[in-house]
């Protein structure tokens, strides 16, 4: 039955008669009833709540009645429950003790101050990010030095396992994507260069662009998204489940055991993937030049040989291990910054990918300046 709360005001005070089911299922109706009764009770000097007709009662119902009683107790010294069925007595005693002390509320910040606060925290956070990166970079360096002194401490099995995951298993998708990008660059080049009869120079553009920049950049970005995010999530969930603390207390260095093999795997895998990716892109470009541009493969290869030198290839390949180092360092340091919650795991994984892609592009720019100044 729907819950009811009938109030009868007499000169000796207010009598409220409770009936029906006072449970969570009728929560919205109950709240309205009790609010209406509270308005009535505000004028009464005496209040009695007659409980004889109640059919069902749960914590919600009991609390609403308790709140009504408490609200009235200020001005009506005699506010009481009458004819309460025995089975609900315990529940009321339980409810009587709760909500006596409101939780300490944090004072709301001034909006301007809150804005300044956010800016300040972001600035400090930027410094912390940088320090965390340097810290991880140093820890990886130190672990590498230890491993060089005692080569037996290198986790070779682990490194090979990760090499298989981030290298071997990434080959198909890297080949596919770089192949398609090679096709697109070639098609666009031929289409636009043809307008002024320069479509033969597509080969020069393809060769230089892919070998110097696109090959390594696309592959680095893909590896950051594919393997960097996996590293962050793995280390982050290990951090959440205290596995990293367990390692540390057993006297092992998590950097040496977990992070170094991962970074080594990445540093080995990325140049290989960048090489394969560049080849696939050139292949795709050549294919489109042949099928769409009508340039036979023989001519394409001959022109390619004239257009590019080993230097272009070297420039691309030299960059690859540094990109890998940046991705690995960022991914691992973000992984170790995961806190207890699932949300923080998501946040750190996003941060890891965004930050490594950003740093890869910045690094590429620095390399461009460097190679230009040494004439490569």
């Amino acid at each position, binding site marked *: 039955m729907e819950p009811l709360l009938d109030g009868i005001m007499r000169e000796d005070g207010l009598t409220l008669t409770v009936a029906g089911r006072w449970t969570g299922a009728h*929560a*919205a109706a109950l709240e309205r009833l009790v609010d209406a009764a509270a308005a009535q009770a505000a004028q009464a000097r005496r209040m009695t709540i007659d409980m004889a007709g109640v059919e069902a009662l749960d914590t919600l119902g009991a609390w609403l009645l308790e709140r009504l009683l408490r609200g009235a107790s200020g001005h009506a010294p005699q506010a009481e429950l009458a004819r309460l069925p025995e089975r609900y007595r315990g529940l009321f005693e339980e409810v009587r003790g709760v909500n006596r002390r409101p939780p300490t509320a944090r004072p709301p910040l001034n909006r301007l101050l809150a804005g300044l606060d956010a800016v300040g925290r972001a600035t400090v956070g930027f410094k912390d990010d940088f320090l965390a990166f340097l810290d991880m970079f140093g820890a990886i360096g130190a672990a590498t030095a230890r491993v060089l002194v005692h080569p037996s401490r290198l986790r070779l099995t682990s490194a090979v396992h990760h090499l298989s995951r981030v290298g071997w298993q990434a080959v198909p998708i890297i080949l596919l994507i770089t192949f398609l990008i090679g096709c697109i660059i070639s098609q666009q080049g031929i289409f636009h260069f043809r307008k002024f009869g320069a479509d033969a120079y597509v080969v020069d553009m393809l060769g230089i662009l892919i070998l110097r920049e696109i090959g390594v950049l696309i592959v680095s970005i893909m590896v950051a998204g594919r393997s960097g995010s996996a590293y962050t999530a793995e280390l982050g969930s290990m951090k959440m489940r205290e596995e990293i603390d367990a390692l540390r207390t057993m006297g092992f260095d998590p950097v040496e055991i977990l992070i170094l093999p991962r970074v080594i795997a990445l540093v080995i895998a990325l140049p290989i993937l960048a090489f394969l990716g560049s080849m696939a892109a050139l292949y795709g470009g050549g294919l489109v030049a042949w099928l769409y541009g009508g340039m036979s493969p023989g001519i394409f290869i001959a022109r390619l040989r004239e257009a590019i030198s080993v230097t272009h290839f070297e420039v691309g390949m030299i960059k690859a291990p540094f990109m890998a180092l940046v991705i690995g360092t960022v991914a691992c340091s973000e992984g170790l910054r995961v806190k207890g*919650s699932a949300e923080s795991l998501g946040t750190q994984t996003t941060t890891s990918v965004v930050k490594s892609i950003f740093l890869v592009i910045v690094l590429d720019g620095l390399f461009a300046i460097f190679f230009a100044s040494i004439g490569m």
Partner: protein
Amino acid sequence: MDSAAENPAIRVRDLVVGFGEQVVLDHLSLDVRRGEILGLVGASGGGKSVLLRTIIGLIPKRQGRIEVMGLDLDRAGHQDASVVGHRWGILFQQGALFSSLTTRQNVQFPMRENLRLSERLLDELATAKLEMVGLSPDDGDKFPAELSGGMTKRAALARALALDPAIVFLDEPTSGLDPIAAGDFDALIQTLQQTLGLTVFMVTHDLDSLHTVCDRVAALADGKVVAIGPMAQVLASQHPWVKAYFQGKRARTLMSADNRG
């Protein structure tokens, strides 16, 4: 009492559950009466948690029938099934609190989704539940990662009780607690069971809990319930595993301490 026996809170008949080749529960039958605290014991890996998870529908069964509050969940429509979902509360072994919500938000979550309440009432009720399980109102603003083991169990119990369920499933509620905290927790469950009229289905290894709070104890061995009844009756069972469990060294020490005390 008769009506309670005829119309149990949970009725399990002929339940078979297995993974691959392995059969974990083998034609198991069990009744949980309304308003009782039933303790389920069994060897580690013996299928206690599997039984609990099968009853609440997390593990599919191979055959058999499970009725909760008289409703067969296989035959029930989506609507009925979700109503039953509001009538039970589950305390998982590790708490399973939502890590990105505060403790108060965890308790409010089922209320917010299922009941139409004002923010004020939501806050008051969440605080009430937290206080009923022995946490302070200020603990409500903490995140699960900031709670101790005992507090996590209490917060998880508060969430399990959020909708005033008729049945509460507890998966090893006192594991990982010190004896004092475990005793407190047992007393808390008993108090809440009495005040709220709960039916409690408790998987436990804690001999103290079995002695002090359980109305009946069911022993699970070889995929079946081999003994069920009040503690004294289960102790008298001649089943070899039950004898080994309750008359092993640790159990005997505890019992003799009980007798002396």
